[in-house]
């Protein structure tokens, strides 16, 4: 065999491989994206299009979609659930960041008696599955009279071992000399945290905030048991109502409800894509 034919074979193989690669990638992308696209198309479809007309490849009516969104926001408890969930997510994020960063600052940069024990305990809790704590925690919340309240939703999730772990990992990379320089500059312990450690950890904090938002927005089990009253339904529960077998809602209205639930995390993803991906990759590689 001459070297020319060998080269041709290699080139041919290369092209086949490239072609297959593209076909595969596009197919997977379609499978991944289409259900969401389909949902979008059902919402923005001409009214009266039977749901059985499939596949819906593109939206056909903007106004009909908007009017459905309007109906849902005005005539159902959806808007309130939206505010409840946003409040739940924001309060969780703020509390977790504050409490977690304060503790991470100490665990990452200082030594004090009991630190190893406490930190070890928290890291150990990462291994303990939520199933074992969820019911006793519910019972505790009930005892505190916090069922169907915002604090009942938020407070038990604030001492996040995962969040602490992420922040400690990051703060460990802060140079020691910088902390000492601040001390020599006369900054008190709290001011070193506030003026130096906190601003320098902005990246890790933002990552944690985004991951926490995604997680809280999608949290289903905890609100389900701790906030079973309609006044404090989260989006997850309301979406569950819309989709229940006897909800008396037409399919396109149900899909509108679903679409509205996807919107915030989807927007977050489009804006903070890199941070989200980095955050997940980081938690994986450190584990």
């Amino acid at each position, binding site marked *: 065999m001459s070297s020319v034919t060998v080269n041709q074979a290699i080139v041919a193989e290369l092209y086949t491989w490239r072609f297959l*690669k593209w076909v595969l990638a596009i197919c997977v992308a379609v499978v*991944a994206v289409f259900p969401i696209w389909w949902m979008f198309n059902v919402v923005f479809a001409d009214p009266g299009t039977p749901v059985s007309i499939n596949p819906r490849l593109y939206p056909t009516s903007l106004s009909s979609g908007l009017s459905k969104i309007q109906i849902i926001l005005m005539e159902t408890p959806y808007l309130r659930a939206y505010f409840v969930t946003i409040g739940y997510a924001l309060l969780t994020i703020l509390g977790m960041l504050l409490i977690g960063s304060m503790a991470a600052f100490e665990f990452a940069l200082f030594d004090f008696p009991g630190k190893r024990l406490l930190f070890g*305990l928290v890291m150990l809790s990462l291994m303990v599955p939520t199933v074992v704590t969820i019911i006793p925690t519910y019972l505790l919340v009930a005892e505190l009279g916090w069922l169907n309240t915002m604090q009942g939703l938020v407070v038990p999730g604030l001492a996040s071992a995962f969040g602490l772990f992420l922040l400690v990992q990051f703060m460990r990379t802060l140079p020691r000399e910088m902390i000492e320089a601040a001390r020599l500059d006369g900054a008190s312990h709290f001011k070193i945290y506030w003026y130096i450690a906190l601003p320098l950890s902005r990246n890790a904090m933002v990552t944690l905030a985004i991951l926490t938002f995604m997680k809280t927005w999608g949290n289903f089990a905890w609100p389900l048991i701790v906030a079973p009253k309609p006044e404090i339904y989260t989006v997850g529960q309301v979406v569950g109502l819309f989709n229940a077998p006897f909800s008396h809602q037409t399919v396109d209205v149900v899909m509108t409800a679903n679409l509205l639930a996807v919107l915030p995390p989807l927007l977050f993803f489009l804006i903070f894509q890199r941070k989200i991906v980095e955050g997940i990759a980081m938690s994986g590689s450190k584990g």
Partner: protein
Amino acid sequence: MNARRHLPHYAMVLPFALLFAAFFLYPIISGFYYSFHDWNAATEARFIGLANYEAVLKSRDFARAMTNLGIYIAITVPLGIAVALALALLVDSFTGFWANFFRSAFFLPVVLPAFLAATIWRWMYAPNFGLVNMVLGWFGMPSVNFLNDTGTMLYALIAVDVWVSAGFNMVILLAGLKNIPQDLYEAARLDGASRLQQVRYVTIPMLAPILFFVVTYGFISALQVFDVPWLLTGSSFTAYGGRRNALLFPVMDMMGRAFGAVRFGEATAYGFILTFVIILFTAVMFGLRAWRTPK
């Protein structure tokens, strides 16, 4: 003097420590206590020894849930990770814009709240007009009621599960792939390794630590599967698990016993049994890793 010097440290840790103690340590301890008691939160708790554990272990639902779980895990974990690895390799073979594009596209399902993924797929799986059945129809196959046919329910769940989790694991594996030095591949190519051989002899060994994390994490979360089967079957605390309990899983069973049947003692005992299984799994995984890693 010494204690005073450390005071600021304790002050800063205190909020976290208090909340951690109240909402992690205390629930574990109190849960352990409840698990030996007959208790419905309304009447006085009554000590009954191991009866709760016995009741759970002997119940038919537990056996059913564990069987489902066993099949589910045996398929979903390896399949999910194989798909994730394949996607990671696929994305890694692109560069620039298209690498980002495909990564984002593949990751999109992760962005959805799990409750929504389940909800959307209920529509996808719907008999007759659902998208999946429509595609089957193109190939002349009869419509299947995926979520009501005990023969297909579990596999329908697995498909959703892989759809949701593949992107997540892909991102972690991609980060690992990026850390493999390029010259290792070049060396392997000079040694005459084909593309597949490069994956087998360079990529997978170099990814081992991250694969280990992904597999372990995959096991732990699969053991606690709840949202997706709960919603796929349209469950409530009084009726869950789908037709003939074909999608009954331990956490669903546990939640039902707590909030449907109001047997909190039994439910907490259930939690501890599950935790025991999870710890056992994790220990086996770590043991395997220690055994596989030469000193």
